[in-house]
């Protein structure tokens, strides 16, 4: 029997607001001396009360709107009750029955390079917990992170391969940075991924009666590795006739395998209920429209516009729109280039081929100068490019095979090989179409 993975993602992102979610402490705690960004509120001292940070709520709304969510007319903060030493109040202020934004979607690319739509259940507002450090047999608690604003973006179980997962996570990270709401740095814990993974016989539609939650994994790469390991493990178990359990697993990078962290029996009943300390969150339609109208051009919108307006390739456009600054400087270069009869494609090719980091105005001027002075000669000659492509395919048979079996990503290996051979001077757009033609 063939099996199909069913994956849902939960992404937590810490917002970069000035103050914390429910108090006036600075939310910029990274590197600060432990317990210096604290007050009665984020320490959960008796008598202290939460006071909601309006900026954070607006940021959450921006994320939801960018992900095509509806903003709930009425939403509320709720308490998620559980005990953990890093949770000062004994409950986390979160959202459950009444999230701020719901029912969105995002398009991602699957392994075959096709576009699939991932439904987004919600983007809701909550607060972070403190941080535990275990050392020398004691556990230390730092409450600097306690009550820093968090947004949780939850998808429906719509992912079926890890390319989709990777693309989704990358797109979200890019979005958070475009919106300027978070640094979205995985290593610093600004952005955290959790995946729910199960498998079902291919062709069936109902959800499996179990799911494995993958948690506490702090890089895209490890998450993808953990999901792939899980898919394999689960299929093998089912094939052996074993029953799979609802559980939480972590990733052991040394052993390259997942391990059980918590089984279903230990699951919490969070006893959610509306937080009586906080009023309803209400927004009028004009208020929502205003926030919507203030959204910057989103990365995927910019990508499409670049392809359309500047007639550059999808892959070049992707690189140039990876972050807002690069995109802005590229556009500046294009504008200045027009006066010197330099085409956008020339600029794009040069930046991409030579991996130039566009960081300042000077970089822009330098590039234009180089192109104008013909200091850079891109290899445009079809014959020469053909030759490079031939060499690359001969030397990378495995990638050729992978590409032919549907893994479109393998093309990048071949492209990279050509670039290496040409010292970055091959015209990427041309070499790409030559390679694609060759591998048909």
């Amino acid at each position, binding site marked *: 029997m063939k099996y199909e993975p069913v994956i849902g993602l939960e992404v937590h992102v810490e917002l970069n607001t000035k103050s914390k979610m429910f108090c006036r402490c600075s939310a910029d705690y990274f590197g600060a001396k432990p317990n210096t960004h604290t007050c*009665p509120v984020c320490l*959960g001292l*008796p*008598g202290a*009360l939460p006071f909601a940070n309006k900026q954070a709520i607006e940021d959450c709304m921006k994320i939801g709107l960018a992900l095509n969510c509806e903003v709930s007319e009425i939403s509320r903060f709720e308490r998620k009750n559980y005990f953990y030493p890093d949770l*000062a109040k004994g*409950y986390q202020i979160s959202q459950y029955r009444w999230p701020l934004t719901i029912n969105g979607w995002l398009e991602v690319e699957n392994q075959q390079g096709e576009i699939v739509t991932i439904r987004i259940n919600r983007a809701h507002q909550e607060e972070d917990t403190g941080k535990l450090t275990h050392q020398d047999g004691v556990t230390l608690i730092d409450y600097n992170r306690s009550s820093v604003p968090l947004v949780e973006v939850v998808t429906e179980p719509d992912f079926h391969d890890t390319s989709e997962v990777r693309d989704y996570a990358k797109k979200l990270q890019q979005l958070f940075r475009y919106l300027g709401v978070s640094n979205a740095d995985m290593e610093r814990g600004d952005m955290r991924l959790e995946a729910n993974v199960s498998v079902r016989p291919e062709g069936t539609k109902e959800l499996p009666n179990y799911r494995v939650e993958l948690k506490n994994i702090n890089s895209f790469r490890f998450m993808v590795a953990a999901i792939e390991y899980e898919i394999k493990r689960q299929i093998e178990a089912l094939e052996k006739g074993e029953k799979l359990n609802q559980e939480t697993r972590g990733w052991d990078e040394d052993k390259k395998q997942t391990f059980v962290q918590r089984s279903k029996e230990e699951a919490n009943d969070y*006893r959610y209920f509306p937080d009586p300390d906080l009023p309803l969150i209400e927004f009028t339609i004009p208020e929502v429209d205003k926030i919507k109208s203030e959204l910057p051009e989103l990365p995927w919108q910019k990508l499409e516009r670049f392809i359309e307006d500047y007639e550059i390739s999808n892959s070049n456009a992707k690189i140039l729109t990876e972050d807002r600054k690069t995109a802005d400087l590229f556009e500046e270069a294009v504008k200045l280039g027009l006066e010197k009869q330099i085409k956008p494609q020339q600029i794009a090719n040069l930046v991409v081929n030579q991996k130039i980091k566009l960081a300042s105005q000077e970089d822009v001027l330098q590039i234009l100068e180089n192109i104008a002075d013909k200091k850079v000669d891109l290899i445009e000659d079809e014959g020469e490019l053909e030759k490079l492509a031939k060499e690359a395919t001969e030397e990378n048979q495995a990638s050729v095979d992978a590409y032919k079996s549907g893994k479109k990503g393998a093309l990048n290996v071949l492209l990279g090989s050509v670039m290496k051979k040409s010292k970055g001077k091959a015209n990427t757009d041309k070499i790409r179409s030559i390679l694609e033609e060759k591998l048909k």
Partner: protein
Amino acid sequence: MDSLKPKEFLKMNDITKLSLLDTLKALEENKFSKAELNEAYLQRIKELNPKLNAYLKVVEDLQGIPVAIKDIICTQNIETTAGSKILSNFIPQYNATVVNKLLEQGMGIIGKANMDEFAMGSSGENSAYGVTKNPWDLNKVPGGSSSGSAAAVAADLCVFALGTDTGGSIRQPASLCGVVGLKPSYGRVSRYGAMAMASSFDQIGPITKTVGDARKVLEWISGPDGFDSNCNEDRFKSKDLRFKNDLKGFRVGVPKEYFGKGLDSGVEKVIRKAISKLEELGSEIIEVSLPHTQYAVAVYYVLMASEVSSNQARFDGIRFGSKREDFGEEVKRRIMLGTFALSTGYYDDYFAKAAKVRNLMKQDFEKAFEKCDVIVGPVSPTVAWNLGEKMKDPLTMYLSDIYTISVNLAGIPGLSVPCGFSEGLPVGLQVLGKYMDEETILNVGEVYEQNTNWHEEKPKL
């Protein structure tokens, strides 16, 4: 009094008997100093507190006008135990908003008042530090949970006190001790710094010797602080302190549901008489109905206990306080009840349903207030009962709050004004008003007070 020289004034008057307004006036006229005022009160506390156990801690600060603060309200660098063993060593690092507001007005903290543990109780007997006695009869309960606050005001151990009211905890002990108690509208006063019992019900308010005093204190402590998100933007400012001395044009609603089974006949007689007095003073008496009153206790105990179960979770002994074993019986009972009501599979049947009925009760009041300006009735179905009498039966104890908890469910303001005696013990008249309309209930209360002498009666100690 005005013509008396300071020395003569002190000789002629027991200054601990003065109301807040009279104390302020006398201080302004230099009849005595703040130090003399404090000394008089401290002397009285020294004599009487051992009998009454109204204070858990006495602070000898001679700077301000002596105020008792219920021990659930955080006072910086002064132990705040909430009447619980679990916080026996807890010293807050911050002042509650109300405390700061009082200090700004020249008030001083003379002591932390005893109370039922975490404000859970109606008799004062749930304190981990011993019961407070009723100044009118040391064998009787003072009511609760602001037991020490009410007893301290009744026994003239402070100029006024702050209490908290979640289901009647200001009004009921005020009634049982024969003093004035005001529960402001929910959101009128910032709750910041008052340890939460049930967050959607809790409200801080004054317990005073006169209605005028309560009006003054509310002006001082109300208003937003940027810490309590549910606090109303408007500070209470009394529009006209020179209101007329009758009740012509006032419509007084009397809910038939507040005069049924369970109401002690002696108390009923006193309340009926007080209502006649209101009529005599020119008001129109109108019968109103609050049809969902019978569900109040059930709804309150589901919602309150649910909030309690979550609010008490921070007492985990990690950052402050001792171990959870130190919680008293009543607190544990409510934590268990609330945890159950919020559990998966029960939420809809208990919490969600109770929340719906709460809305209906709010509407009951809104409808009733279309016909009247204030609603009056008893605060407590009985006068103060014997110490120990109801401790074995929590349900009977819960039913003693029957007339007060609907008010917290609806979030409206309520005042208890002394209106007579039954079996030699004080009875309070409850005056309820529209949401954020403390002005009207204070006006009705003050006119009533000025035309009766009940507030001048003092316990013989």
